[in-house]
Each structure stands twice: as structure tokens, then as C-alpha cells.
């Protein structure tokens, strides 16, 4: 009942939204029609001027001046429409499960376009400039910045072969065959010469990253296939750019000589390598800048975005591959920037990129729908059908043929299932449309555009909708949902070194050898320049470990103890805040634990009375402590991290003598322990306990049967009892509480 009510509410909401927005789009355009001339701007001034001299008009309490805000108003309205649509889909669960979001968005675009057309207004079309300069870069940057480097470089050869050879094959096959088709008199296609056909082929043959991302994101396919199709869609940009410009130039000239073809090949290398070079330069600049941003953390994310955007624009200036430049910039910049920036900036970057790319994607699909309804069409059955068939055919042939060759060089061969998914996942999208839109020759342009749109619709709707059930049907391996495992990271590193070593012993300069050389070069020269302070020496394993700890600490905080801990920290660490900030992320693990632990103990003991009272008042306001919030989180995480570390060393090591520790503990624990029981006795310990097997059992475990390593454990026990104390007081395990109390009382 409730579900149905919710769903019908959802439906009506979507419908209303839709009508409102279509209506506002209409009003926007209506005013645009009225206020077309620039002189209108001057009129009010003149009017006022003359009025001032002639007679006094009553002061306008309420005025209406739409032109003033027209442009930003409409832009915001469109973006709002897009996002509300996106929201709307998720209210209607059944539909969004079957139909991929991209299809729904195109559909909405079609509707809106239809409405606008019915009102005889001019709809905003997916202008190429808008697309290439504003809508595409965020998506590509998001993809490039978060590109899984390991998978990408391991399959680089395969991806390159698919991207370059595959796209070339597609372009020439489709172009050539379409030329043959156009020669058939019965087609009544008109005079389309070979070069135009080839141009058409090159536009339609490129796999589109936006469409691929949109569809593949939802089906959660295994990493290999995802990176293959996605990598291909990114790297084929260079090929597309070269082919497009080549054929466009020559379709005006009329003929192509061998010399031109040769120049084309050279141009390919220039475009791709040049694009990458531009990206690398900006990436290094960005990394270098981030080294100095420790004093103004707030603008850190901006540097990342701006440098990347500049890389894209700079590459576009020279007709180099902007996409490759953007990817290269993101990839190069990321490891260094992440080592330098604060945790918050990292989160900001991540969410802004996701946000922008999401908005862009939504807008692209909606505009695609609108442009479809709007654009002048020239529907030619033969041309369109053949294009569609040939595209599919060339894709399948290309993938199968290339895989046959590639498998000879791969260790993990691509199976038939993999090949099918790669072929089926070759979706065309808005890039093809925009490139077609850029064409200047109008008579063939409409025919081409119609065919392009049909192919896009087919791939996005038919292939996009059916790929999910097919993936299930063929039981293709899905993405394994494994959380970060420190063991796997250790073994990944171990294997890297092992394989490099074995390769060296064999005299085999393979993949690992060069990767190792690159890593060493990176460590000795590059990191010193681009990473601030001591972090330049931090090996990857340690950064991984830190990140993992941070994540776990965050989970701990958010799940269990969040409500209570801030109050404690507020009271205790008011004086520590400044000091903690400076210690920030550049400290070594060891130093942090000792200093923090000492401080906490000192402050707690000093502020015992005040603490109690503050606790009482703070626990009511624990969610609204804004002045402390910022420092809290960093401090909190550090603290949690320290805690967990404690628990782990307790759990695993075997101290020889247990008798010493209780007496020592009692002396230290009593004051802090009392303080915390006030608050923490009520806190749900479940969150804390889930993550670490029985933190409260740290004490109990200590009297485990003394193993052979007694002698080594003995000198450690004193150290451990030292370190146990803060964990006792900070984590305050519920169940043992009574035990502690009773021990305490009994010893008195």
C-alpha cells in the first residue's frame, strides 16, 4: 500500500516537474523572442532619462526585468530539469532497474524537445562548442583522475590495439562499404563521394566514453572488461581526431595523395603524443603547485580542476587530442597531489568531479534527445539501415579478428564471452553526434546526422538495455566487491618485486623490469620535487596502510561512537587542537602515537573536574560543535587510528607476564576511566566491536599460553602496558567495565 502510494506520488511528481520545466523553457524562449534586439537595453535608460526631464513617474515598487538574468536563468533551469529528472527516476524503482538511466534521459529529452517544438519555439541544440568545451571535459577528467592505473597499464597493449587498429578498421570498413552502397542506383542516395563516406565512417566508428561509462557503470562488470572497453573509448580519440580532420580537409580538396596519407600517419603520432605531452606538463605543474598549498587548503581542489581544464584547452588549441591530454594530466597529477593535499581537499575533489560529471552526462543525454526532435532530418531508409548493419558487423569482425591476434601475446587470454561483451559494449554516443554537427556541407550533413542519431539511439537503447540481461545470461564475471585488504596489498608489492627479480635472473626485460625502473626513477628524482616534506619518502605500502586505517577509523566514528566521542574530545583537546593541526599528515606513525598519547593523558588529568561538567553540557550539543568540527575530524581519525593499532598489537602478541600489568594499570587508569564511564556506558559499542574482533578482549588475550617467544615478549610487556593505558581509557570497552571496577575496588 505504502509502496503504491509512494510510486503514484513519484509519478505525479515527475509529471508535474516535467510540465513546470517545459513551461519555463517556453517562457524563457518567449522572452528571448521578444527581447531580441540590443537596443532594448538602452530603452529603459533613455526612458528614464526623458522621464526625469519631463515628469516624475511613480517609483516602481515592483519591476520585471527578465533579460538581465536571462542567460544564467535558463542555464540553471535546464540543469535543474536534468537533475530533477535524474532524481525522479530513482523514485520509480521498477523502471530504473530495467532501463539504463541514459535511455530514460534521452527519452525525457525527446519529450521536452517535442513540447518545445509543439510550441513552435527554438530549442537549445547540442551545440558542438557547448559539448566539447563545457560538457565533455568534466566526464573525461573524472574518468581519468580515477582511472585504475594498474589494470590500465597491464592491459595497455590490448587497449591500444583495439583503440587504434580497431577504430581504423571500423572507419575504413564502414566508409568503404557505404560508398559501395551509395553507388547502387536504386538507393537514390545521391552523389556521395568516397571521401565523404570515409569521413562519415570515421565519425561513426568511434566508441564513445560517455555512453560506455553510463551503461557499464550500472552493470558492474569485472574490471578487465570494463577497462578494455573504457580504455579503448578514451584512447581512440586521437584516431578519431586525426581521421576527422584528415577527411574533412580532403573532402574539400577532392583527392588524397600518398603523401597526404603519409602525413596523416605522422599527424596521428603528433596528435596523440603531443596531447599526452601537454597533459604531462600540466600534470607536473599541478603537482608542483600542490606542494606549496599547505597554507591555503581551501583552494587546493581548484588547482586540480583548473590545471586539468587548461591542459584540455591547450591541447585543443593545437588540434591535439584533448581527451588524451586530460587523461594524462589526471593520471600524472594524482599520486603527487594526493600525497600533498589535505584529506578534506581530497574528498572535495572526488565529490566535485563526480558531481560535475554526473550533471554533464545528464545534460548531454537530454540535449541529445532535444536535438533529435529539433534537428533537420533527411531520412533515407537504405542509408540508415545499411549504416546500422555495417557498424555492428564491422565491430564484431574487428573485435574477433583483433582478439585472435592479441591472444597470442596475452597471458590471460580473452575468451569468447569476453569478446562478445567487448563487441557488444561498443556504444556510440554524443561525440559522434557533435562531430557530425560540426560538418559544414549541408546537403549531406542532414543525412549523415540522421544516420548517426539512429545508430546512437540503437546502441544506447537496444544494446544498453539488453546488455544487463545478457551479462546475467552469459554469467560473465562481475566486479568482485572486495574491500581493501592489507594482505593483498602486501602480496601485490611482494609479487611485483619477486617477478622483477625472477625476470632479472632470466635476463628478461619485461613489463616488470620497466615498471620497476620507472618506480625507482620516480622515487629518486620526481617525488623529491613534487611532494612536500617528509611524505616524499613514504613507500606505497605505508600510504596504503594509512589510508586504510583512516577509512576504518572513519567507519568506526560514523557507526558507533560518533555521538559520544566528540564531547570527550572537545573537553580534552581544546589545547591540543593547534598542536594536532601542525602534526597533521607529515608525521611518522611512531611520533604521533607517543606524543598524542602523552598529551591526552596530561590534559585529561589536568582538566578532570572541568571535564565532567563540560561533558554534561557538550553531550547535548554534540552535533553542532562547528568551531571544533574541522579539527575534530582529523583529530578523531588520528585517535581512532592509534586505538586500532593498540588493539592489534595486543591481540597478536604474547607478553610473558600478566601479573605486572594489572597493578600498573590500576594506578593509571582510575582517573580517566571514571571520567569516561559517565558518558561511554551508554554508547552502543556495536560499531566498535564489529570492526575489530573483540577489542575488549585485549586484556583477556594477554594471558594466553606463553609461547616460545617469551623472551622476546618480556621486554615488550612493559612497553605494552604503557601503551595499553590510553586504549583502555579511550575505547572503554563496555563488558569489561565492571571487571575493572571490581578489581579496582578489591585492591583498595
Amino acid at each position, binding site marked *: 500500500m505504502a509502496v503504491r502510494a509512494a510510486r503514484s506520488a513519484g509519478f505525479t511528481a515527475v509529471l508535474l516537474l516535467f510540465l513546470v520545466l517545459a513551461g519555463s523553457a517556453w517562457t524563457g524562449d518567449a522572452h528571448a523572442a521578444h527581447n531580441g534586439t540590443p537596443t532594448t537595453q538602452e530603452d529603459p535608460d533613455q526612458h528614464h532619462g526623458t522621464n526625469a526631464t519631463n515628469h516624475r513617474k511613480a517609483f516602481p515598487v515592483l519591476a520585471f526585468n527578465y533579460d538581465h538574468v536571462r542567460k544564467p536563468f535558463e542555464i540553471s533551469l535546464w540543469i535543474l530539469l536534468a537533475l530533477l529528472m535524474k532524481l525522479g527516476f530513482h523514485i520509480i524503482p521498477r523502471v530504473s532497474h530495467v532501463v539504463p538511466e541514459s535511455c530514460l534521459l534521452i527519452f525525457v529529452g525527446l519529450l521536452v524537445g517535442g513540447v518545445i517544438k509543439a510550441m513552435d519555439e527554438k530549442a537549445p541544440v547540442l551545440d558542438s562548442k557547448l559539448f566539447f568545451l563545457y560538457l565533455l571535459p568534466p566526464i573525461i577528467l573524472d574518468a581519468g583522475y580515477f582511472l585504475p592505473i594498474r589494470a590500465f597499464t597491464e592491459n595497455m597493449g590490448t587497449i591500444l590495439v583495439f583503440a587504434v587498429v580497431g577504430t581504423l578498421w571500423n572507419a575504413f570498413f564502414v566508409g568503404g562499404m557505404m560508398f559501395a552502397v551509395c553507388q547502387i542506383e536504386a538507393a537514390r542516395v545521391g552523389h556521395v563521394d568516397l571521401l565523404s563516406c570515409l569521413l562519415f565512417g570515421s565519425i561513426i566508428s568511434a566508441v564513445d566514453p560517455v555512453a560506455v561509462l553510463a551503461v557499464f557503470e550500472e552493470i558492474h562488470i569485472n574490471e578487465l572488461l570494463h577497462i578494455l572497453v573504457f580504455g579503448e573509448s578514451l584512447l581512440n580519440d586521437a584516431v578519431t581526431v586525426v581521421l576527422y580532420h584528415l577527411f574533412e580537409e580532403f573532402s574539400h580538396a577532392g583527392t588524397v595523395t600518398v603523401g597526404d596519407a603519409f602525413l596523416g600517419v605522422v599527424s596521428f603520432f603528433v596528435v596523440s603524443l603531443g596531447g599526452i605531452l601537454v597533459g604531462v606538463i600540466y600534470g607536473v605543474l599541478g603537482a608542483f603547485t600542490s606542494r606549496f598549498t599547505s597554507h591555503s587548503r581551501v583552494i587546493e581542489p581548484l588547482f586540480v580542476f583548473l590545471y586539468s581544464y587548461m591542459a584540455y584547452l591547450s591541447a585543443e588549441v593545437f588540434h591535439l587530442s584533448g581527451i588524451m591530454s586530460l587523461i594524462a594530466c589526471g593520471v600524472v597529477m594524482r599520486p603527487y597531489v594526493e600525497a600533498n593535499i589535505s584529506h578534506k581537499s581530497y574528498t572535495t575533489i572526488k565529490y566535485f568531479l563526480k558531481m560535475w560529471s554526473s550533471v554533464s552526462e545528464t545534460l548531454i543525454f537530454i540535449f541529445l534527445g532535444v536535438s533529435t526532435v529539433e534537428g533537420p532530418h533527411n531520412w533515407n531508409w537504405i542509408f540508415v539501415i545499411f549504416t546500422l548493419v555495417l557498424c555492428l558487423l564491422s565491430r564484431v569482425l574487428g573485435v574477433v579478428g583483433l582478439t585472435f591476434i592479441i591472444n597470442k601475446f596475452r597471458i590471460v587470454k580473452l575468451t569468447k564471452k569476453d569478446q562478445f561483451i567487448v563487441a557488444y559494449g561498443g556504444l556510440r554516443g554524443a561525440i559522434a553526434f557533435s562531430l557530425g554537427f560540426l560538418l559544414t556541407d549541408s546537403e549531406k550533413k542532414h543525412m549523415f546526422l540522421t544516420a548517426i542519431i539512429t545508430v546512437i539511439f540503437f546502441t544506447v537503447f537496444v544494446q544498453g538495455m539488453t546488455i544487463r540481461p545478457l551479462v546475467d545470461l552469459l554469467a560473465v564475471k562481475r566486479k568482485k566487491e572486495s574491500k581493501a585488504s592489507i594482505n593483498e596489498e602486501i602480496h601485490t608489492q611482494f609479487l611485483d618485486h619477486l617477478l622483477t627479480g*625472477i625476470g632479472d635472473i632470466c635476463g628478461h626485460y*619485461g613489463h616488470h623490469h620497466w615498471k620497476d625502473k620507472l618506480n625507482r626513477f620516480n622515487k629518486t628524482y620526481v617525488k623529491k620535487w613534487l611532494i612536500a616534506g617528509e611524505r616524499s619518502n613514504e613507500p606505497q605500502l605505508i600510504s596504503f596502510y594509512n589510508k586504510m586505517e583512516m577509512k576504518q577509523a572513519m567507519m568506526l566514528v560514523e557507526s558507533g561512537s560518533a555521538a559520544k566521542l566528540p564531547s570527550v574530545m572537545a573537553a580534552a583537546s581544546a589545547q591540543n587542537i593547534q598542536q594536532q593541526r601542525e602534526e597533521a599528515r607529515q608525521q611518522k606513525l611512531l611520533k604521533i602515537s607517543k606524543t598524542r598519547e602523552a598529551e591526552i593523558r596530561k590534559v585529561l588529568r589536568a582538566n578532570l573536574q572541568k571535564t565532567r561538567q563540560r561533558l554534561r553540557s557538550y553531550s547535548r550539543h554534540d552535533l553542532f560543535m562547528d568551531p571544533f568540527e574541522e579539527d575534530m575530524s582529523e583529530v578523531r581519525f588520528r585517535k581512532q587510528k592509534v586505538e586500532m593499532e593498540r588493539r592489534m598489537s595486543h591481540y597478536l602478541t604474547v607478553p610473558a607476564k600478566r601479573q605486572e600489568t594489572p597493578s600498573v594499570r590500576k594506578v593509571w587508569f582510575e582517573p580517566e576511566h571514571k571520567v569516561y564511564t559517565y558518558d561511554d556506558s551508554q554508547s552502543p559499542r556495536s560499531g566498535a566491536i564489529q570492526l575489530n574482533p573483540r577489542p575488549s578482549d585485549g586484556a583477556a*588475550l594477554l594471558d594466553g599460553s606463553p609461547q616460545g617467544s617469551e623472551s622476546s615478549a618480556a621486554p615488550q610487556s612493559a612497553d605494552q602496558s604503557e601503551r595499553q593505558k590510553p586504549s583502555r581509557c579511550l575505547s572503554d570497552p563496555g563488558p569489561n567495565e565492571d571487571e575493572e571496577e571490581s578489581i579496582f575496588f578489591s585492591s583498595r
Partner: protein
Amino acid sequence: MGTLQSSPAPSEYADLSEKTGFSFEQIGVLHKRFRHLSHGENVLRKEDFNGIPDLASNPIRTQIVEAFFDQRNFSKDGDGKVDEIGFEEFVVVMSHFRPPSLHMTEEQRESVRKEKLRFLFNMHDSDNDGIITLEEYRHVVEELLSRSGALGKETAKGIADAAMLEVASISVGHMEPDEFYEGITFDHFLKLLATFEIESKMSVRFLNMDTITLCK
């Protein structure tokens, strides 16, 4: 196949080929390399490995070299260490890194995985008691971080501890307060790296020894 200076003759290759799964060509290339490393002798010693310049900068160099002289890697029930190895042992150790062939049954794939994981396990378990204790694991992590200089022991300890904890929670799950996790047995190790796809990751391409390969 290249010029070989002397024995073993192709008939011995047949034996080796059957035992390890390498082709004749690959064995020939390995033999060339063996003779280069051993300076023309028939046996290889630990010192010979010091002549490889790139190996010197590898953080786990000692463990790798040890693995070649560890009898557990020569046959299923070997034990202990030797000081010199012949060509046959060299090839047997190398065979652990052979990439899996395309047409393998699930069983064969499983046995290949076990073999490779066994090799890794032996590398970690230096005292050969069948269990990787916390100390041994710490040693592994320390070696891995040995090139990083100053950060050293404490961090390695922390990381190793976290890792052991993870293994404990994966293999044993919930533990009683008075239980103690002794170390990683081979079964736990298998379980730990179950999703690691070791059969494809732990492979070196043997055929084209001197060429650069870009794709795996």
C-alpha cells in the same frame, strides 16, 4: 635455439620438458642463461647471483635467492637448504613462474594455483615449520620496506600486525578471548589469497628473453 656450448643433450631436455612443462626452446634459452650466470660451470652458487646488477636494488633479493636453494621448491617432500644447484633445479624453480596454458581444466588450474601459492608460502616460512608466524610475517614486511630507509621497524610491525589480524578474521572468524592465533597455515594462506588470481599474476614470459613485451 642458439648455440649451446655443451651438455645436456636434447634427450635430457625431453625429461625436463616433461617434468616442468617448458618447451625445448624455452629450456634451451634457460640453459644459456644458466651457463652465463654460473660462468660456464655446471652448478650455480649464491654468490653467482650477486653478479646480476639489477637484482641488487631489489628489496627482497635475499628471499628470492634463498628460494632457489630451498629444497622444498625442488620436490614435494624436500627439506632444508643446499649450497649449490644444478640446471635441473634451476629449471624446476623457474617452472613455478610458467604462465598457465589456455586449455586447462578447472582441476589443473587449481593445482597450478596451489603450486604457486606453495612457492610463495615457502618464501615466507623461513624456518620450515609449516606456519608463517607473526615474526616471520614481520620480517617479510620489513624486507619490503627495507628500501624506504628511515621509517623502519615500528611501521612494519604495525602493518604486519594489521595483516595478521585480517588473516585471523578471515580464516578463523570469531575467536574466543583465550584463543591465540599462532600463525598462517598453508590452508589459511590459500583462503587468504583466494581471489588473488595468482596463476596469471605470478607469471613470467619465458620465450622471448631479450625482447620487450608490452602486453601480458
